[in-house]
């Protein structure tokens, strides 16, 4: 067995990632890409934002460079920095610069997690200038038409401290994502995991139960991703109640009473 080593800009997605559109998002993204407009994906965790990006990268046949933002992410983490090797300083492109250079799709996941001063470096890239200034090397990178910038954020759980600035958000075409409707979600689970329709339907019911608890004890309901996890476990012959407990309940809360309640709910369903 050999692990493949790829440079980010060589990361083309070869096989079609399964994605079931909820609305017009594929057409809108296509149009935005043609018109060189950056895209903002909004939606709760695990509803398919990242999968959508993979799907679009496959469709558009461009490499996808994903950066998961965190609160220590600095501008040079995105743009690039000097490193010292064998007595020399050399410039190394960050993921954003390398995406611009290679005409890739750069996807900044959970952008609000990054520090506020970091988000402003994408401003010149996200308007009609489409340039990335690299102050340290004194260069301007001009994006080719193939380059595309996409960012995502979850309006649900961000704190007031981490709101997306108007000056940032008003540069993007915004696509809203939510959990798919019951039938569609059932279909997605079946396609992704191969479990039978009845179990999938009960699993979606369980997801709706947890989503009803949002705000009264839970911060978030079960995401589609978690349902897929649980279904995968069930596919390996794990008892449904155990699968719900380990893949869903334990993943969304640590509160003991809540865990017991969710266990009771899942054992009611299966």
């Amino acid at each position, binding site marked *: 067995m050999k692990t493949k080593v790829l440079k980010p800009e060589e990361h083309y997605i070869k096989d079609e990632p399964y994605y079931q559109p909820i609305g017009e998002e594929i057409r809108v993204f296509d149009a935005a890409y043609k018109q060189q407009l950056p895209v903002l994906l909004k939606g709760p965790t695990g509803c398919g934002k990242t999968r959508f990006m993979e799907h679009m990268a496959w469709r558009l046949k461009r490499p996808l460079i994903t950066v998961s933002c965190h609160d220590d992410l600095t501008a040079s983490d995105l743009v690039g920095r*000097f490193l010292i090797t064998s007595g020399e*300083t050399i410039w190394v492109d960050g993921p954003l610069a390398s995406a611009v250079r290679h005409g890739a799709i750069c996807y900044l996941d959970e952008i609000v997690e990054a520090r506020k001063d970091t988000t402003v470096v994408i401003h010149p890239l996200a308007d009609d200038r489409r340039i990335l200034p690299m102050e340290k090397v004194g260069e301007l990178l001009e994006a080719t038409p193939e380059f595309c910038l996409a960012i995502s954020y979850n309006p649900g759980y961000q704190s007031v401290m981490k709101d997306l600035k108007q000056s940032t958000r008003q540069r993007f075409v915004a696509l809203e994502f939510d959990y798919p409707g019951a039938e569609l979600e059932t279909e997605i689970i079946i396609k992704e995991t191969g479990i039978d329709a009845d179990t999938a339907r009960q699993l979606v019911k369980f997801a*709706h139960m947890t989503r*009803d608890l949002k705000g009264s004890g839970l911060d978030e309901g079960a995401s589609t991703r978690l349902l897929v996890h649980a279904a995968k476990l069930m596919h390996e012959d794990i008892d449904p109640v155990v699968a719900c407990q380990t893949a869903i309940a334990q993943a969304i809360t640590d509160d003991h009473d809540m865990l017991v309640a969710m266990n009771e709910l899942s*054992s009611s369903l299966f």
Partner: protein
Amino acid sequence: MMREPLGKDEIIEFMDECLEVEFSFVKNEIPAEQITKLPRQQQDFILNLIKRVADTNIELAYQLACGSAHALNEMGKHMVEEWAMTAADHYDRKGLFPAMSIIRDLDNFIHTAHERAHGSLLEDEIGVLLPFLHGLSGRKLKLEASDTTFTDTETIFVPPVIAVFSDSKENFRLYKATVAHHWAQIQFGTFRTDLSQLPEDQLIKFCSLETVRLDACIRNELPGLHRQMQSLQNKFEQQETSGQYEEIINTLSSSNASVKTTLDLLDKVTYEKCPGSYIYQGTIDPVAVAATMSKRIEREKAFFRVALSDLAKDLTRAEENDESPEKSPPRFGIRKKDDAEHTLSNGMVQLEIDGGLVAPPQHIKELMSSIIVDFGDIPPEYLVAAGPGEYDLTVFDSSLNPNDVWKGTYHEEGAQIYNEWNYKRQHYHKDWCVLREIEVQPVYDSFVEDTLEKYSKLLKSLRNTFEYMRGEDKLLKKQPHGDDIDIDALVEAYADVKSGMEMTNQLFTKMHKEERNVAVIFMVDMSGSTKGWINRAERESLILLAEVLEVLQDRYAIYGFSGMTRKRCELFKIKAFDDEYDAEVKARISNIEPQDYTRMGVFIRHVIRHFSEVEASTKLLITLSDGKPDDYDTYRGEYGVEDTRQALFEARRDGIHSFCITIDEEARDYLPHMYGAANYTVIDNVASLPIKVSEIYRRLTT
């Protein structure tokens, strides 16, 4: 080393003092006689307990003393303590007579204790049962303890203890089954018909038949739960399902059975042929149901139609800007998805207007699901948006204005209730203090301007000092990773290499951003004793503080506290965490007026709740005070100090740092005990309070 048991005389002497025998004239010889026979350890335990209870009531303590030896014989120390404290608790809430009956009826207490030991208690299980119930979808129902089991369609009433089975897990399952069954009554339309006309015997039959129908519904929707309910029923009593019952059960279990099916069967099935009662079925109270439903239906109709009218306004505004003034109110439609008959999930019915679907906001969705639960559908008259002024929603607003509470007869409705620590009893008084949050009325006068003027120079220097504290960027040198190369470090490293040393990897500079993450609540003493100078100094301090906190951008809230007796504790909101420091907040600060007394503990406990709603790495509670905790009733001296201390312990447990700034010169005698040696400051000169407070805050948070 074993200690000698106390002699009878010693015991009598101790008890005479505890029970104030000169006034109470109780005969201590009889209980002392019994206690003498106990080993020393048990004697100490009993005497201590008598002393603790004597603080509550002497007669109660005397009765306890008489029964204590027997009680120790019957149960462990832990249970005896529980017994005494339950009695004291009953004394607090219900008076002497019920408390005495607890002490006298030891056998009953032991029986209940056993029941509680292997039974399942609602107060223990509600944390699980409530989310379970809410997860079942539909209306957000409440759970309450009651002697009879029924639902009024908004609350499910279940017994406080279930001890039917010997295993507590089984008892919990029975709770679950009971809750699920009553949820099913609401969800699957048991109350979509008027049951109040049914005579008593018919109602019993109805209850039993309806349970069969609901069980079938549960089997379809929640097969796992249905299995558990069946096994529970079988453990309790095997239900006959064959022979003569089969037909009834088949009729009621068919997928198109509704409450009408059950009603139709009523006359056909004789009492004897009824399938019998189920362990989880409880009763049906048609009167309670009708009362709750009629109120809710009226309220929800109004709210729904007004919400639709708001929604329609938003929609038309989005589409076109010209509003033709006189139009008939817009009419919405509903579109049902397939398979909408028996389904748990909401959102199967969608709202549409002019043929297009609309996505209603969350509160409308909740209203819709509640209305569907009542009618099985949304009645057409609901779908007409309310015309302007058609409803006055305030008539449905049941929340009471806190300011009106004292105008009429007093009641505790709508207030928040807190425990209070009694150090003599070494136990909490349960649900003891009644607290209300009241907004300070803003008074727009020149106080704020005057203060800013008066301290303008000080404020300037304060602002400068606080500017420094703000999360500043710091350039860290010699880092292993970073944004830029640290030239100094690089030169040094080359020199090291030349001289034969190993080259370090710490060659980068890194920007480090210090982010303050502080949430602070200021509690200001508004007791009567602050009248005059002190009050003015407090207000001035708050203005200066708020000014500098705005520079720092720390999150802060300001509350004033005062009250009279445990039934009237009032927390005055001046600024909540989310409020802006605006003209209104300033005007509220200027209207902080001295009120009554200071019952500290309850306010600290309330503030802990406020803190639990904010996320911050540092939580700070700063109290500005002028003296000891003190209230009109028993809340003075040691009692008040100990309760406050206990409340501060609770705060610490929740990660809240407490600090007290006081002008009471005697504070050194009691504050170290309450706050800890380093967590207070005494300010000798009232006039210097405004200057000192900001300074203290700076010191505390750096």
